[in-house]
């Protein structure tokens, strides 16, 4: 279960960022910000490699002692960054991929919403509830 989810536009500003323990939010914001460098590195590495298949899922970006950060980039260069609790029994790769796929689908729905201007912060309640369902249940 994710602890923090962020959607970053192609110009590298956040379109949506939400974390679960609402105190200490700044720490997660900072983590997402530093992970952007790793994302850029992976994207440019993909470009140089002569691999035919270029995947959208970037995988584990970097681990810290408490958290692991995963990344995913879409064809429109919008990045999704997810911070996951390390102490959680290791989430399988498949589960992370399916969470990113759900995020991508919801983001596409937000894009197709006529009341949404591309480039604005995401305020859709449907998107919010989808992200809530992915995050940790803090009781």
């Amino acid at each position, binding site marked *: 279960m994710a602890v923090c989810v962020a959607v970053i536009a*192609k110009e590298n500003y956040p379109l949506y960022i939400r974390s679960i323990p609402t105190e200490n939010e700044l720490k997660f914001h900072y983590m997402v910000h530093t992970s952007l460098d790793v994302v850029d590195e992976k994207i440019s590495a*993909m*470009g140089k490699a002569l691999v035919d*298949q*270029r*995947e*959208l899922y970037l995988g584990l970006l970097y681990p810290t002692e408490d958290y692991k950060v995963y990344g995913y*980039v*879409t*064809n*429109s*260069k919008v990045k999704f960054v997810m911070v996951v609790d390390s102490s959680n029994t290791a989430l399988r790769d498949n589960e992370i991929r399916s969470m990113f796929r759900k995020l*991508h*689908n919801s*983001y*596409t729905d937000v*894009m*197709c919403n*006529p009341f949404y201007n*591309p480039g604005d912060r995401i305020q859709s309640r449907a998107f919010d509830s989808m992200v809530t369902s992915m995050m940790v249940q803090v009781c």
Partner: protein
Amino acid sequence: MADAALFEFLHTEMVAELWAHHSDPGPGGQKMSLSVLEGMGFRVGQALGERLPQETLAFREELDVLKFLCKDLWVAVFQKQMDSLRTNHQGTYVLQDNSFPLLIRMASGLQYLEEAPKFLAFTCGLLRGTLSTLGIKSLVTASVASLPTCKFQVVIQKT
């Protein structure tokens, strides 16, 4: 196919509606209507540019994006592929459609040549919007030599 006809009818009505309410019949008013149509196409293109490539892998270079436009986008919107794509390898691409579905019902040949640009404005915006979501700033213009063949010229803006 019934689905294709739905969009064609809607598009025809959009053009007719914009032209009917001409308070300024001179060239200024016409340009406004053309840019309204192009703007509509742009927003639709932005959304399509997000939804259509969802399952495809990341694009490697500009030419891949243009090929995606000619194949997947055209098939999704017009149920056929673009007939030819040419480039000068310096940022200009010419996409040619020999039987453009929005023009094919009108005439075949030179009749209605002056009316044709109105029916291409939305599609120009569509191309520009999709390119903009995929990270390419461009300028798209259309030209018709004889219906229903039309060419879309895409000029990439280098920033």
